[in-house]
């Protein structure tokens, strides 16, 4: 029995409604294996590759480079070599005739964020993927000034075979803003409370930047709740941190002031679009954010020095360390701080490596946590 | 219709545009009496006068707030030779002097009655100049003891009947008492009360704080009166006809066991301490000295004095004459002055 598979515009994150085709990574006639990258698509100026879910031959490139298509639109067709062109053309014709782009409301009807109260703090989180027997869930923890959308290109891909949670830390995203928290341990206490509240006995933790420091602090506080740690450009593994970035982030009040600050995060400065800056400004202008960030930065990164070194907290847990080679916020040299850890420094990448090199990071994590 | 005398009857009307505007609007709940209503009262009084056969009515002029309305209401042309009321030809400066001037002028013009619209103060000014011409005293407000609240049409009728002689003075006119005050060479009068206060300034004139009242002299005091005389009225009512008046010596309520509640201003009932009181007999002089303060005449502070001042108060039984509206019209009824039949000559 031969099969025909459609490749469609993916939905990365909650807000994505359309994507732009950058380029095809496979030519018509190429043999495709599951997991291979077929086409590069861009959303919110972040580009990512659509991976094959199946094996076959790329038979059609329906979408053309620079085309902007709604989520779910047909990009190409993979089929076994023996499927006739007529059948494939018929399928393409029928698909295009029947395809209705999702309305904004339907788009909203996708996975919804939820909130939970932990010790007087309201936390927003997003759970993707189903609880599976024997599968230890994964908890994603963003960095300073970030939120659960920092995992836009990681969250869904990692949720194929397990439940994956991403939360907004206190002071961030849509969680309670001014909680007075000024230490990694206090953040860890909230995270542990969160795990209890949503019924996570034990999880793989993945943390980015300050979120990595939080993962380490959770491990120190409640080792029984931690199965493994994936630390991406993590805090807590050395003294240095770009104090200019931290202070600039806290102080920036306008687009023009914010842009050069945010550009330090990325290897490709063009990724810092106006709408990204606008979104960050919207966050920063929420009541309590400035106070929260000021307290947190003073507690954790005063004077461009990290106040906590937590490499020893891992106490024998499996650890994966990922870093961007050209990280301008926390130097990649910190990657070797944990003896025995699996370390991967991605060449050419910056601090937001999980966004800029999402599929590579996803693969590393996937294979690390199994 | 009554009384045809050889010369035409002249009646004057005096209305004070400034009455009813003093500080008692603030310190009590005294009414603001609109000048438009005063003008309307004049028009109604004229109707009564004309019905009683008076053809020559003299009206006090003012800056226009009353006279202008009267002028329009009666459709006057400004031609002073035409029939109808005339405005006295005199300078107007908007002060109490206008009232004095108008009174003198009307009396010289032969008025045999004056209708006065105002409060105690206005009547006091008229009384100082009107001699033996009887007054028909009409109150324009809630704050007066001397003039009465009554409908101006009826008042005009009564004034006309007395002025023309149709009702004889013995039937319609009453003698009032007067208080004469002299202080360091200044002489003045009061129709209802003289109040010696501790307040050092004439200031905004009205007296409303009983704590400042030291001596009170009254010509008459109704138990149902309003104003300072009401204090006396609750101690020993004195009628307008009685020969005597009353002298009350006040004290702070805390300093005397004798206290009285009195309506001393509209909306203001106060407790007044009384040291003692005595009848004030005609012509007996009461002398006060050794203090400083102000003397209020008919409720308004007029004279400041000091410790060296010599104050004399005495009751004069020969004050102004006033027309008793009820008695006049009762006489008219008894004598059928206003009755007639179809076919009677006008």
């Amino acid at each position, binding site marked *: 029995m031969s099969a025909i598979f459609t490749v469609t515009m993916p939905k990365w994150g909650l807000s994505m409604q359309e994507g732009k085709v950058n380029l095809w990574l496979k030519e018509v006639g190429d043999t495709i294996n599951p997991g291979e990258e077929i086409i590069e698509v861009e959303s919110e100026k972040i580009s990512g590759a659509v991976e094959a879910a199946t094996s076959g031959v790329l038979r059609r490139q329906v979408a053309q480079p620079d085309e902007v298509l709604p989520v779910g639109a047909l990009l190409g067709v993979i089929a076994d070599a023996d499927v006739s062109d007529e059948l494939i053309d018929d399928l393409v014709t029928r698909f295009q005739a029947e395809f209705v782009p999702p309305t904004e409301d339907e788009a909203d009807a996708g996975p919804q*964020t939820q*909130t939970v109260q932990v010790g007087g703090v309201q936390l*927003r989180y997003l759970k993707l993927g189903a609880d599976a027997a024997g599968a230890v869930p994964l908890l994603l923890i963003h960095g300073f000034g970030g939120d659960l959308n920092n995992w836009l290109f990681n969250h869904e891909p990692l949720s194929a075979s397990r439940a994956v949670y991403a939360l907004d830390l206190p002071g961030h995203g*849509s969680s309670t*803003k001014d909680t007075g928290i000024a230490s990694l341990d206090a953040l860890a206490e909230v995270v542990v409370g969160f795990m209890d509240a949503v019924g996570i006995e034990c999880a793989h933790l993945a943390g980015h930047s300050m979120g990595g420091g939080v993962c380490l602090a959770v491990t120190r506080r409640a080792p029984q709740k931690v199965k493994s740690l994936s630390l991406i450009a993590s805090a807590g593994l050395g003294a240095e941190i770009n104090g200019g970035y931290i202070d600039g982030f806290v102080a920036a*009040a*306008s*687009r023009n002031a914010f842009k050069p600050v945010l550009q330090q995060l990325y290897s490709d400065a063009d990724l810092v*679009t*106006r*709408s990204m800056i*606008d979104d960050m400004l*919207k966050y920063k*202008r*929420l*009541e*309590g954010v400035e106070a929260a960030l000021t307290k947190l930065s003073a507690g954790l990164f005063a004077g461009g020095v990290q106040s906590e070194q937590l490499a020893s907290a891992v106490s024998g847990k499996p650890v994966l360390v990922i870093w961007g080679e050209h990280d301008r916020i926390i130097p990649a040299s910190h990657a070797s701080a944990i003896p025995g850890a699996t370390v991967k420094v991605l060449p050419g990448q910056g601090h937001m490596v999980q966004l800029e090199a999402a599929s590579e990071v996803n693969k590393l994590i996937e294979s690390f946590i199994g | 219709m009554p009384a045809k005398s050889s010369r035409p009857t002249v009646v004057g009307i005096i209305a004070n545009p400034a009455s009813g505007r003093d500080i008692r609007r603030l310190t009590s709940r005294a009414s603001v009496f609109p000048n438009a209503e005063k003008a309307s009262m004049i028009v109604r009084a004229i109707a009564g006068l004309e019905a009683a056969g008076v053809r020559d009515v003299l009206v006090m002029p003012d800056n226009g707030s009353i006279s202008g309305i009267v002028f329009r209401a009666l459709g006057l042309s400004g031609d002073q030779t035409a029939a109808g009321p005339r405005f006295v030809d005199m300078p107007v400066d908007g002060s109490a002097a206008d009232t004095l001037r108008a009174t003198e002028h009307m009396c010289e013009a032969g008025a045999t009655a004056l209708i006065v619209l105002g409060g105690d103060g206005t009547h006091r000014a008229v009384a100082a100049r009107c001699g033996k011409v009887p007054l028909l005293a009409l109150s324009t407000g809630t704050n007066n003891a001397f003039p009465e609240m009554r409908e101006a049409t009826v008042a005009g009728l009564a004034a006309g009947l007395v002025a023309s002689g149709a009702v004889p003075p013995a039937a319609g006119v009453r003698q009032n008492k007067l208080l004469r005050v002299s202080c360091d060479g200044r002489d003045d009068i009061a129709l209802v009360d003289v109040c010696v206060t501790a307040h050092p300034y004439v200031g905004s004139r009205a007296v409303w704080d009983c704590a400042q009242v030291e001596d009170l002299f009254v010509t008459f005091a109704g138990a149902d009166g309003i104003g300072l005389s009401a204090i006396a009225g609750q101690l020993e009512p004195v009628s307008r006809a009685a020969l005597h008046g009353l002298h009350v010596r006040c004290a702070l309520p805390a300093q005397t066991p004798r206290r009285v509640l009195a309506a001393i201003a509209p909306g203001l009932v106060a407790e007044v301490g009384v040291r003692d009181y005595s009848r004030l007999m005609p012509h007996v002089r009461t002398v006060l000295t050794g203090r400083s303060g102000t003397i209020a005449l008919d409720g308004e502070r007029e004279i400041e004095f000091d410790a060296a001042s010599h104050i004399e108060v005495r009751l004069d039984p020969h004050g102004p004459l006033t027309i008793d509206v009820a008695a006049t019209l009762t006489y008219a009824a008894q004598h059928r002055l206003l009755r007639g039949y179809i076919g009677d000559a006008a």
Partner: protein
Amino acid sequence: MARKITYQQAINEALDQEMSRDPSVIVMGEDVAGGAGAPGDDDAWGGVLGVTKGLYAKHPGRVLDTPISESGYVGAAVGAACNGLRPVAELMFIDFMGVCFDQIFNQAAKFRYMFGGKAKTPVVIRAMYGAGFRAAAQHSQCLYNIFTHIPGLKVVIPSNPYDAKGLLIQSIRDNDPVIFLEHKALYTMEGDVPEESYVVPFGEAAVVQEGDDVTIVAMGRMVNYAKDAAASLRKRGIQCEIIDPRTTSPLDTDTILESVERTGRLVVVDESHPRCSMASDISGFIAQEAFGALKAPIQMVTAPHVPVPFAASLEELYIPSPARIEEAVMKVKEYR
């Protein structure tokens, strides 16, 4: 946490949150409670369109119905602002500025300068504006340009629920007199609005969408018309950059200038009349500052120089439409 609410709810929420945060904030205006002294409910209306509904009960004594007496209560709001309150006076329809303008432009606007910097007048005057409701000539005007002309005033024209809330909160916290104008047609517009309090600063234009071909500057309701026009133009391969100044005083000239220098083409969309309007003002400023960058004459899409008509057929002609915006964009795009 962001959720969808209407423009009207966003304004109500901004007032509510600021009144809770700062006891010196009061709301006054004709029928802002709606029922003072009447035998029925004290807050029957909550504003003529219900924008202030519910505030009366939540903030006792601080939502004040006024007589229909615009000079009186707008002036009182100004005076109260001089004496430590942060009043939000609702003028109902901006057309009513005619009966209280002195208190706004001769008093509130000038105090600080006339008094040598010693006065602070944190008053907000809210009013609805704009055509489209068959409300005719005295209840439909767009008069923000008149206020923009006056030094000492700030003028705010939110085009969506998010901006409405953030700009109103900024207006209330601002220490200068602010004219806050709400388009009637936007009250029912829904959008994502965070539950938390937040501010949108003045003088920061929003780049509603980016594009390299033509710059469209639009404000208030016209932003949404510009978006409609841009969506249609996109199908024709024309990428419009839409800039919403959000505040006309202060005006973010940098963002407009930067955009026009890149696109070389400018269309200004303004619901008010063409003479001495924001359209002519922005056009003049760009002609002066970016003449060399212009590849085509600037186009203004405005209402005509006539009062707002009543009849639907005329009013629809009066209001600038997406079609007219599209036409203007094509004109600047095709200019050779």
